[in-house]
């Protein structure tokens, strides 16, 4: 291994340790303090604690990025903080439209698979000026979610992925990066985040699903980051994705009966159509990424 690669590995290891450590400490401490898995609890105090862990925890990868650059004296080149919009506006538009389409399509798939007996028009019969207004307000709220999303993206796509791509071919780097990103969520998943705690195969199925989702998302976000050489499109994807889930779509546009049916589904069941949509995004993103990779090798 060349000395350059050794240095990259060293920097990557320092970054990952700094990024992983806070959740690995905070979540078990909070679990023992409250005496139950914090994300599956109905105790109002844990709800507040979860919110704070979510907001500040998402900023940890950025802090790890900053600290790694300072500790290893790497300097501040290639930080991906520029906008680079010239001729790249399509990627910026895609960063908002694709996650929005992904959530909408997943909601349609949830209807197709789980709302048996109920027509599409009957299920989503709440299209009025008020619900559209509420949806637009929620969408505008992505502006706020952008900050924690940027906190994650500047670490993962802004530091980890370029380092991984230095060490291995792009497709492999995308898969490895996605798994690392999914495993970073593991302490939260074990504490009931996203899937709860009462599903078959807890917590390994949850961690596995999270790794799958993160790998698929990672492909699309890495594609956007590589094409624009900017971290902001990936942060937009993350913000819109976190802000407009399937549940949010149902809350605004479906009727009470559909909401009750949705409430009867487990989080894992609801996740399966979403993973299906993400798989398509993953394949398309990988095709574009690999095409670009082959061109680079030819050049």
């Amino acid at each position, binding site marked *: 291994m060349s000395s350059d690669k050794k240095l990259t590995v060293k920097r990557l290891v320092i970054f990952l340790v700094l990024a992983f450590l806070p959740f690995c400490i905070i979540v078990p401490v909070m679990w023992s303090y409250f005496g139950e898995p914090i994300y599956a609890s109905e105790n109002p105090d844990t709800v507040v604690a979860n919110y704070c862990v979510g907001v500040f925890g998402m900023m940890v990868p950025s802090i790890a990025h900053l600290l790694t650059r300072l500790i290893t004296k790497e300097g501040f080149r290639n930080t991906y903080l520029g906008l680079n919009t010239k001729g790249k506006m399509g990627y910026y538009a895609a960063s908002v439209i694709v996650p929005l389409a992904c959530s909408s399509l997943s909601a349609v798939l949830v209807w197709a698979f789980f709302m048996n007996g109920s027509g599409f028009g009957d299920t989503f019969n709440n299209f009025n000026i008020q619900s559209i207004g509420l949806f637009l307000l929620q969408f*505008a709220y992505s502006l706020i979610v952008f*900050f924690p999303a940027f906190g994650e993206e500047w670490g993962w796509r802004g530091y980890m992925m370029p380092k991984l791509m230095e060490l291995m071919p792009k497709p492999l780097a995308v898969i490895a990066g996605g798994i690392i990103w999914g495993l970073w969520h593991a302490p939260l998943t074990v504490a009931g985040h996203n899937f709860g705690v009462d599903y078959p195969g807890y917590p390994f199925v949850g961690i596995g699903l999270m790794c799958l989702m993160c790998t698929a998302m990672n492909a699309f976000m890495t594609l956007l980051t590589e094409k624009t050489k900017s971290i902001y499109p990936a942060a937009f994807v993350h913000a819109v994705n976190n802000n407009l889930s399937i549940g949010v779509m149902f809350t605004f546009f479906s009727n009470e009966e559909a909401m009750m049916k949705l409430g009867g589904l487990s989080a894992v069941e609801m996740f399966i159509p979403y993973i299906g949509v993400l798989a398509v995004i993953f394949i398309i993103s990988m095709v574009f990424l690999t095409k670009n990779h082959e061109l680079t090798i030819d050049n």
Partner: protein
Amino acid sequence: MSGLLYKNFRINRSSMIFTLVTAILCGLTLIFAALFGYTLRGVTPVEPASASSTDVLTASSACYFLAFWLPSMASATLFHADENKTCCAFAMSLPQGAKGHVEAKYYYLLIQALGILFIMFITDTILTAMLGGTVSTTAVLPLLFSLHLFLAAVEIPFMILFGADRGLQIKGGVVLAVFAMVAVYFLFGDISWFIENEDDPLGAFMAWLGSGDIIFWLALFPYISIAAYYISCKISVKIYRKGAESYEQ
């Protein structure tokens, strides 16, 4: 572009520090108010939809508004700094031209507004945690940010065309005229579409507010303000040369 942005940050360092310190002070005021509310008065986390929760909502909204509004008072300094013929001629001779020069100012103001939004978001998160999660004003923040952008979008073309001081006066005049026209319309015009029951206009207005129709128009505002900011930038680029000719040497 990064060079032009750096120039703006360098020249307006004190204005930027003022902006951030103001936002931090507004945030700290709220946090300390909540903290002393606990320790001095022994207040427990406020109940949702109670009088104390309304107090918190009003106080935090006012502080957030102040944090966005005070820096906008100092926005003229950004244009004052290079408001003479020599600077303008130099800006136009740069590779990025007048376009880059004007766009850098728009980016600067956007970064400034995002900085305030971030500080207010962190403040709100801490406040929400301190009050036991019962009160949160986070939903107000995108609207205040949009208002800030919208006002900047209206203000900047005037400042570029007529100079910072005259531009501010003209903008003030235009805003006042629009308000006067709206006031005259609401006093003497046909407002039956808005308030159906003229015997009880306040009751009808409150009913309209509660009907939910307003949410749609309110929800459009962030999108309108972002579009307005973009269009304002394009207009400012176009009128920069004309404005520069009227500046003093």
